[in-house]
């Protein structure tokens, strides 16, 4: 009648088994204490039933302190140990390995839009290669959503106006549910999709067959020219006659940026995004706060492409030319794509 009646989810990512072990550990502890309490209640309920010869409970004065300390300390030790174990798993869930490939995702009522680094776009579907860590940088166009892939045991809220990230490494080819888990309105339960984890060669085939797309960092380079970012962020092209009016972005990503008025900030995706939309929020030390805001002028997808482009600039890069082709000097960012 119901051919498909699972009681435990598929485990298909590098962290899934870790989460399951932690869960089963807690389950064992919970079972032990529930059964202990349950059994004691049943035994006492039977054994000390009120009788004519036992109309009152014992009034013996028992020293409670040693008992109380014992049954406070034991749960405390267990809870703190489980906290530490949980924290270890949490770090593994939250921290992507250095070689994670960057995907982008945009959520809106009520669909998921994903973009591969190669530029291929998908809606409510996500094809990923098995064995390759993938980090998805996510944002929302409207309300808060949450991206959840049960088989991978990962989840993150997706917020409007900022980036959050989710990383996973699929370990088993297959098709897995992808859910929105933050209530987001009428069609919340239809904001679902499928993750297709493919063997690496199948993934290459999938990418190669009829998918078109300009690699993000290339389209980002075009946008860099179109929005005239390079008139100020001139980088290597700055000359004494035509000095740069904004800091060089080459090799910026991942560094600590010194700010006007002291303090530093790490140049991550969120920083890049914020600097484009709210340039006055973090002004780089040594520069004037003259950059205009680009809020409302570009779509989330364009913003993602620009961020990806800036991320891809190695130290010593020249910016893209006006026609959008990658700069000639230094390593061409486009050649990294794929």
């Amino acid at each position, binding site marked *: 009648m119901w051919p498909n009646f699972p009681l*435990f989810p598929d485990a298909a990512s590098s962290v899934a088994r870790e989460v399951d072990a932690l869960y089963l550990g807690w389950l064992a502890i919970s079972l032990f204490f529930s059964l202990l309490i349950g059994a004691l209640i049943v035994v*006492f309920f039977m054994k*000390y039933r009120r009788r004519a010869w036992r109309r009152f409970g014992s009034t013996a004065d028992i020293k409670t302190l040693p008992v109380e300390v014992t049954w406070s300390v034991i749960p405390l030790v267990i809870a703190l140990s489980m906290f530490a174990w949980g924290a270890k798993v949490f770090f593994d869930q939250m921290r992507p390995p250095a070689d994670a490939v960057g995907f982008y995702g945009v959520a809106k009522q009520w669909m998921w839009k994903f973009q591969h680094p190669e530029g291929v776009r998908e809606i409510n579907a996500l094809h990923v290669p098995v064995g390759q860590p993938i980090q998805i940088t996510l944002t929302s166009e409207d309300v808060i959503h949450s991206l*959840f892939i*049960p088989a991978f045991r990962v*989840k993150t809220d997706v917020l409007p106006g900022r980036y959050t990230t989710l990383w996973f490494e699929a370990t088993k080819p297959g098709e897995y549910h992808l859910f929105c888990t933050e*209530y987001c309105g009428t069609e919340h339960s239809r904001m679902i999709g499928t993750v297709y984890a493919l063997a690496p060669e199948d993934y290459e085939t999938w990418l190669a067959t009829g998918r078109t797309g300009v690699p993000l960092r290339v389209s980002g380079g075009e946008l860099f020219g179109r929005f005239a970012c390079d008139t100020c962020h001139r980088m290597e092209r700055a000359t004494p006659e035509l000095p740069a009016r904004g800091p060089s972005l080459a090799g910026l990503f991942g560094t600590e940026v010194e700010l006007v008025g002291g303090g530093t900030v790490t140049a991550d995706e969120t920083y890049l995004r914020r600097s484009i939309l709210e340039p006055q929020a973090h002004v780089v030390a040594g520069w004037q706060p003259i950059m205009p805001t680009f809020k409302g002028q570009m779509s989330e997808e364009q913003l993602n492409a620009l961020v990806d482009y800036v991320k891809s600039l190695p130290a010593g890069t020249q910016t893209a030319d006006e026609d959008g082709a990658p700069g000639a000097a230094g390593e061409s960012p486009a050649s990294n794509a794929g």
Partner: protein
Amino acid sequence: MSTSAATALPEPNYLSAGWTLRSWLLTKDHKRIAILYMVSVTLFFVLGGVFAFLARLELLTPAGDMVTADVYNRLFTMHGVIMVFFFLIPSVPAVLGNFLVPLMIGAKDLAFPRINLLSWYLFMIGGTITVAAILLGGVDTGWTFYTPYSTVYSNSHVVLTVIGVFINGFSSILTGLNFIVTIHRMRAPGLTWFRLPLFIWAHYATSLIMILGTPVVAITLLLVAVERLLHLGIFDPALGGDPVLFQHLFWFYSHPAVYIMILPSMGVVSELIAAFARKKVFGYHFVAFASIAIAILGFLVWGHHLFVSGQSTYAGLVFSVLSMLVAIPSAVKVFNWTATLHQGSISRETPMLYALGFIGLFTIGGLTGVMLATTGIDVHVHDTYFVVAHFHYIMVGGAIMGYLGGLHYWWPKITGRLYPRFWSKISALLVFIGFNLTFFPQFILGYLGMPRRYWSYPEEFQVLNVLSTAGATILGVGYVFPLVYLLYSLRRGAAAGDNPWGAAGLEWETTSPPPTFNFEHEPVVTGGPYDFTNVKEALFDE
């Protein structure tokens, strides 16, 4: 016993003090106000229950086919709003607490009788506004009102609903204030702090949360209304606001609010266990201080609702470890109750069945709560049915079991009447079985990955959902029973006498129902609580 002779109640009593509508609506008697609350929270409970049952019916099949998605979203939202704000938060404190706090401490009334009546009116005004919002078409944000959905995107009666909840909050604040002043100032001679029943300690702790936490949620909901009406950027990033700020403010109250719901029931359970084991509660001081510890620590754990909200990993860890700490006083309570049973004289009356059910279900609810506080697990089960199951084990398995247990325990005191014991035991059993069948499958569903607030779902989740709906049906029947036999007892129940259970405590030393000013002579207390040596005239000893 012969019914005709046994139906005469002692006169004068607070019920016979007046029969007119005016004598009820303008009463300053804490016992009558408790009755007003009892009637109103029961109506809200029925309303919230109907919404829940309709939602469960929709979930019988994977496809969304009984109601539309919009209707379903309104059903679970209004179920949550009504149950949390208009049933769970007021149920034990405003009904049983109102009735019993003065009686248990030997006082004539609460410190501020007029404010007590005012708080019922505020409750009713807030409730009426919320019901009006429902009748106009309802609200679809979830009871959590997350922004910017609630402030910008929802096409439902958000403002009206939050105004209702806002006003209701003041009712809660005033009740808390009244309890704190009463407990400080109006204890009978000789009733020192450590002679107080644990019910009083629990209500004291609850009142602290009501006073300190409720203003925060009131302000937060006001800000939601302000942003929605005036488009001031507070939470919506498009207007320069911060959507996660709302979650911090909301949970700063709403996590402690969980303890507003469960602490009074814990107080009830302490009374029941002592009375029906005829034994002093084991580790009295530890149980008392556990209530206070829960109230204080409860304010430091809100961030465990935000592990996957983009909150920093380290903030998540701090909230995780603090949440683990709240589990300790809760565990201490469970161990102490269980130890109280040891060498007790255990009666099998209905209130005791509820109390024992409470301990079992609260243990499961608490343990799964600590699992959720474990960051590595929460990432997976956050916002799934695992969370739904967990908090229903605390709210329904805990808070409502405590309320029903307390209601069955003090009903003879409140009404002067006995209810049919057989049917009440059957109903306690139905509630226990129905509850577990409803919510246990949801733990499995949650770990499988079924998100909460889903109108339709993948078909492999159907079997567990069918079990859950079947359980909800049994649970519903279990709840209808007391509604029937308790009302029946009002007319046909035998007179209970002052102390039918052979319990200890000042409330059992006056008549049932008590006179308007509770005691003929101000009682003088000479010993600690739960002293059964002078217990007389128990109706139901084996």
